[in-house]
């Protein structure tokens, strides 16, 4: 089949079962957009025009996280490509499959500082799993095949293909490869049996075992395997930020949310565990607190598909390089059925302490302004937890992570490793596009919302019925909280004046409502949920509300503060 490079690029996407592209056209990618004209008109593929390339990147991340398949982005050369860097970095840190296709200036003028030329491969190398610049049209099929293979296998990640304009315009005989085998890239997915036996022995002899589960559970679709293992060996399960919704939060073995603003129980008790099974998580500093004090007395089993994660932060007795699902399933075959009733109760006791000290007042205050936790709890109750929730970054993110009662597996999406403010709204576009039948709720703060507020335009144009919640406290809340606690309340550049968000939404043709009083909260939430189209619900919350518990930077998780 004789095709131009541009047609070949889109045909390659179709071979990879891509149905949606998030993108923004420009000079160096115009031949591809010209070819796209035919494919979108014949409805073979859908293109969503974003308002900023960063928005396309985060939308593709949302798509990648819910489907497990790479989200696809088109952007032009120069600024189009450099605008993707934050989203690429975010996807790299948070292990999200994504394929970005950027136009590049003509190969004859590369290196001459041509108009809209940027060294995209150079700029993006540290934030991509793999990248390649196509200058010859014949390279397109194999490079696309390789890109998708790399993005979706092993430890998933973002991949970038840069295509020069002349390669887009040239013609060749197109044939898409059916298989790919790379000499240098063969991720190990099956666990080593010797290591499994070693891990099983550690768990079988443990009195106080603890499971720390992360994003890998979702990526590997290991929810049942995790549940079965925890159940059989009676092991409490604590979850990282990205691990949330991988284990039922109403189960007696649910130990809670780990980390700096996580639950009291899993933080204080992790240092009392004698054996820790960490799976699909990477001992981020937000989880470990001061590393020298972390899991000091525990023997650690670590399952991860990326060998570089094993022994990276802490020493591990039983490192297991594998995909989480087969590793957990195999482990189950070697596990003795046990009961750790007393140990499990210790978590329940901690929960009770946290409930009295924090939850009750945060979620159900009787007077004063609306609290963030209260708003999130009411949304959680109103949806019965049956929603896909996308958060931005900051105080509200920790509040959502703490208080939303996720019912669906893999239903919480947030920027963890990079902590990218502005992630939430565009990521929700990707989630909603991939799951149009599910309720998708984007929850942001007033700061982060304004970092990608322009995507309201995309949401309006594409009629995406996303429910958009803004928890407005008039501050960059998390920074303000730190300034209050660690910088003598010297509030430096954290007070933020915002526009009338409802008027902004209205200008985009999106309905909205502002809630200031407690008695209007339930009504506002129900109006939002009943709305057929997109809806912006702005909730004015307590200005100087703090997120607790908190493990201060440099402190041990055992020293978690409840107030």
């Amino acid at each position, binding site marked *: 089949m004789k095709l131009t490079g541009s047609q070949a690029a889109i045909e390659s996407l179709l071979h990879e079962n891509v149905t949606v592209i998030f993108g923004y056209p420009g000079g160096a990618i115009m031949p591809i957009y010209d070819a796209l004209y035919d494919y979108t008109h014949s409805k073979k593929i859908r293109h969503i025009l974003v308002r900023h390339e960063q928005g396309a990147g985060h939308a593709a991340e949302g798509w990648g996280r819910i489907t497990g398949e790479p989200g696809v982005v088109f952007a032009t050369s120069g600024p189009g490509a450099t605008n993707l860097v934050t989203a690429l970095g975010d996807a790299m840190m948070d292990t999200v499959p994504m394929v970005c296709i950027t136009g590049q200036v003509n190969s004859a003028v590369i290196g001459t500082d041509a108009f809209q030329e940027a060294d995209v491969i150079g700029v993006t*190398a540290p934030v991509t799993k793999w990248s390649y610049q196509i200058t010859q049209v014949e390279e397109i099929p194999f490079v696309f095949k390789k890109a998708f293979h790399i993005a979706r296998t092993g430890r998933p990640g973002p991949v970038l293909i840069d295509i020069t304009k002349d390669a887009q315009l040239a013609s060749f005989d197109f044939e898409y490869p059916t298989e790919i085998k790379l000499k240098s890239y063969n991720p190990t997915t099956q666990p080593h049996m010797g290591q499994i036996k070693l891990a099983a022995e550690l768990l079988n002899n443990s009195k106080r075992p603890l499971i720390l589960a992360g994003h890998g559970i979702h990526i590997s679709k290991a929810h049942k395997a995790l549940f079965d293992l925890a159940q059989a060996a009676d092991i409490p399960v604590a979850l990282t930020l990205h691990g949330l919704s991988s284990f039922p939060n109403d189960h007696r073995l649910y130990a809670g949310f780990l980390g700096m603003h996580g639950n009291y129980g899993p933080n204080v008790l992790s240092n009392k565990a004698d054996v820790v099974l960490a799976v699909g998580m990477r001992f981020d500093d937000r989880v470990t607190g001061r590393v020298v004090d972390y899991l000091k007395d525990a023997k650690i089993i670590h399952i991860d598909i*990326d060998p*570089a994660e094993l022994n*990276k932060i802490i020493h591990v007795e039983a490192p297991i390089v594998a995909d989480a699902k087969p590793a957990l399933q195999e482990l189950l075959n070697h596990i003795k059925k046990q009961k750790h009733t007393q140990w499990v109760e210790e978590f329940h006791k901690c929960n009770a302490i946290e409930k009295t000290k924090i939850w009750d007042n945060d979620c159900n205050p009787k007077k004063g302004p609306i609290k963030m936790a209260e708003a999130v709890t009411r949304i959680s109750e109103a949806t019965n937890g049956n929603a896909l929730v996308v958060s931005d970054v900051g105080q509200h993110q920790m509040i959502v992570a703490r208080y939303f009662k996720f019912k669906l597996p893999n239903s919480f999406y947030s920027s963890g490793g990079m902590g990218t403010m502005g992630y939430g709204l565009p990521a929700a576009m990707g989630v909603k596009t991939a799951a149009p039948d599910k309720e998708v709720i984007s929850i942001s703060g007033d700061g982060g919302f304004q970092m990608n507020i322009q995507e309201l335009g995309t949401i309006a144009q594409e009629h995406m019925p996303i429910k958009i919640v803004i928890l407005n406290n008039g501050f960059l809340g998390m920074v303000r909280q730190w300034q209050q606690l660690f910088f003598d309340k010297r509030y430096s550049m954290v007070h933020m004046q915002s526009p009338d968000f409802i008027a902004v939404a209205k200008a985009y043709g999106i309905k909205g409502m502002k809630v200031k009083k407690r008695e209007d909260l339930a009504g506002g939430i129900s109006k939002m949920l009943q709305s057929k189209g997109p809806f912006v619900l702005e909730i004015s919350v307590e200005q100087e509300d703090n997120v607790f518990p908190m493990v201060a930077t440099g402190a041990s998780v055992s020293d978690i503060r409840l107030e």
Partner: protein
Amino acid sequence: MKNYYTIIAFTENTPGVLYRIADLFLRRKINIESLTVSEVKNEDQSRFTIVVFAEPDLVEKIGKQLYRIIEVVKVIDSVDTDLVAREIALLKVSANKLEQRKEIEHLVSISSFVRIIEVKKNYLILEKTGTEKDINDFYELMKPYGIKEFVQSGRIAVFNT
């Protein structure tokens, strides 16, 4: 404790690999003492020989992180005792007077792995191969005569096992 390590990495022979490898060392703030890249015969692969001075723990970690680079096929880190390693140096040594010239020629004849590759009116160009230490020693030996120019390659090494 810090030590010299030779990291030998086999990679696909494609552009951009050097960039990614260098970036990894930059992120970990490990200075590359020497670097040699050569083609592996009949394999379409490159062989990176990277010498670093670093803590053993960090060398192990960077070895694993190198595998994250898609094009990296195999990484082996080793200490000097596992290797036979050589470098090559070129020295342009002043030799204005006959007496000097004779002395240098004599030293070259009784030294190992040194040869004269250019003879000019005012200078000699010498080629010395050996370990870093051999080359340093020879440099010191020639220093009194006046070294006008000196250049040394990175290390190449094969496993002695």
